[in-house]
């Protein structure tokens, strides 16, 4: 494998994608909703997220003790804000690296088939592995960029509210969020992208790629959300452990993706 060729495929694809709004828009919209609209919504209607004080007690009762200790002396509104912004919304930020790359990753090979450019690409002496990794990378980099950008935006908004409304010190970033954004999300993104690119290489069109990969990813999303919601309460160690599991999954997905990518089959199945 030659890294130069991987980067070449990456650069070419990025040039194309950056001029294609249909692909760019989906990757920006979801993170925007999660990072800007969600925190604003919570802060604008304090205490009225449908959670009555009894429910609040129910939630706090099951929390791990180190989280419970932090809530001592807070008003109900403060508890609500603290728990939703720091814990309950955290899983949304794991959905970003799974969902955001869907449009780009589905387009990777299927888009070239639809636009009938794939044949010339396959004719080049770029190896199967280099091509697959280049296409994976072009989804990965923008995905991580928007994930990190959304995290920064989200932190800024949360801090703005917490410092002005409650006169607290800035809440974010904390170690749990840092491990989640910088360790867990890249591994989750890679698994999702690898799977989608694999599907994209096998099917004929982008739509098909999107639908099949969505079906494959939904159970993963659910599983990840459940795991992540638990893990954020337990803390950085648990998130790091989860990262380890996903790193293993990435390795498997990329290995299988490269192994199953047969360029000689792509044109045979095009007709």
């Amino acid at each position: 494998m030659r890294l130069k060729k991987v980067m070449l495929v990456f650069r070419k694809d990025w040039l194309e994608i950056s001029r294609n709004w249909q692909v760019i828009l989906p990757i920006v919209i979801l993170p925007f909703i999660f990072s800007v609209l969600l925190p604003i919504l919570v802060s604008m209607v304090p205490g009225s997220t449908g959670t009555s004080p009894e429910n609040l007690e129910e939630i706090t009762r099951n929390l791990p003790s180190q989280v419970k200790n932090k809530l001592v002396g807070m008003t109900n509104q403060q508890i609500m804000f603290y728990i939703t912004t720091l814990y309950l919304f955290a899983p949304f930020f794991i959905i970003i690296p799974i969902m955001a790359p869907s449009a780009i990753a589905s387009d990777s090979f299927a888009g070239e088939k639809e636009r009938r450019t794939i044949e010339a690409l396959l004719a080049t002496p770029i190896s199967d592995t280099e091509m697959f990794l280049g296409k994976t990378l072009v989804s990965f980099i923008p995905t991580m960029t928007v994930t990190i950008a959304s995290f920064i935006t989200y932190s800024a908004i949360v801090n703005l509210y917490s410092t002005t409304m409650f006169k607290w010190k800035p809440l974010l970033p904390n170690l749990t969020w840092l491990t989640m954004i910088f360790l867990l999300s890249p591994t989750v993104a890679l698994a999702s992208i690898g799977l989608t690119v694999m599907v994209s290489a096998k099917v004929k069109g982008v739509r098909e790629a999107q639908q099949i990969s969505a079906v494959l990813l939904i159970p993963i999303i659910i599983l990840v959300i459940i795991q992540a919601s638990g893990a954020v309460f337990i803390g950085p160690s648990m998130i790091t452990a989860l990262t380890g599991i996903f790193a293993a999954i990435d390795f498997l997905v990329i290995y299988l993706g490269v192994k199953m990518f047969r360029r000689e089959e792509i044109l045979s199945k095009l007709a």
Partner: protein
Amino acid sequence: MSVIEVTGLTKKFGSLVAVDHLDFEVWRGEVFGLLGPNGAGKTTTIRMLACLISPSEGSARVNGQDIVEEPLKVRETVGILTENPCLYERLTAYENLDFFAEAYGVTDPLEKRERIRELFDFFGLWERRNEKVASFSRGMKQKLAIARALVHRPPILFLDEPTAGLDPESSKEIRDLIERLSRKEKCTILLCTHRLEDAEKLANRVMIINKGRNIATGSPEQLSERITGQPVVEVKLVKLNRKVLNAVKNLSQALKVESFKDKILITVENPKSATPEIVKGIVYAGGEILTVKTLRPSLEEAYLKLVKGESS
């Protein structure tokens, strides 16, 4: 010396045999035409030779490399004009060539820039280099796609229907370009087409295929002769008389002589050596010549006969 050697090459798509045990050789420096009607298996053959799809049976060596064992090396040494232009429409013409140059290993920036400039100049596209390919006409796209195939100076060039979808004027332009190219770049060209004009004007040798099978191989002249027999020299005179006719009949190279009004039709083996002898003979016998023409059965007639004969 042969640079492409094909033995028993076969491709099956399910029960359909698209290419059926083809055997042929292409020699260094020649333009080899692969001629056949739609669905004959031309594109499939080129795709196998360019390592885009794998053969079901048989094998081939391209520039000494086996297409099954060394696909990456084969891809490096060949340039290919695919059936569709396969250009990135959102990129400019320059960006397209730049990407493919690097993909084919032309990574030295100076060398790359010079080669791209040279190709843009050759194809007359330099002025349009910074425009998106989406805005190009069919003919311009075809030129750019040929330029792309040449970007790494391949010793072997595959051209799949280079004039398909172009108007007669653009077709001629592309044909002329290919002719100049085969001289200038000195590459071996495998040209596939269903247009006889292309094969007749460009190819040194032609293989006619139908339903994946080889029907006939040879130079365009040989193929046409094989079908309709030998060439005929037609001489038109001011007035034809017995003396002239007898003089012609006595010529050693005249195999068969027929006359109509003031015209003589002489069947010969080789028009090149026979025509001067015929003209000399007629003038010597006092005949006054108006025109001399060599009548050849066209490749078209040969082709239609061969393809029809195969189908029935």
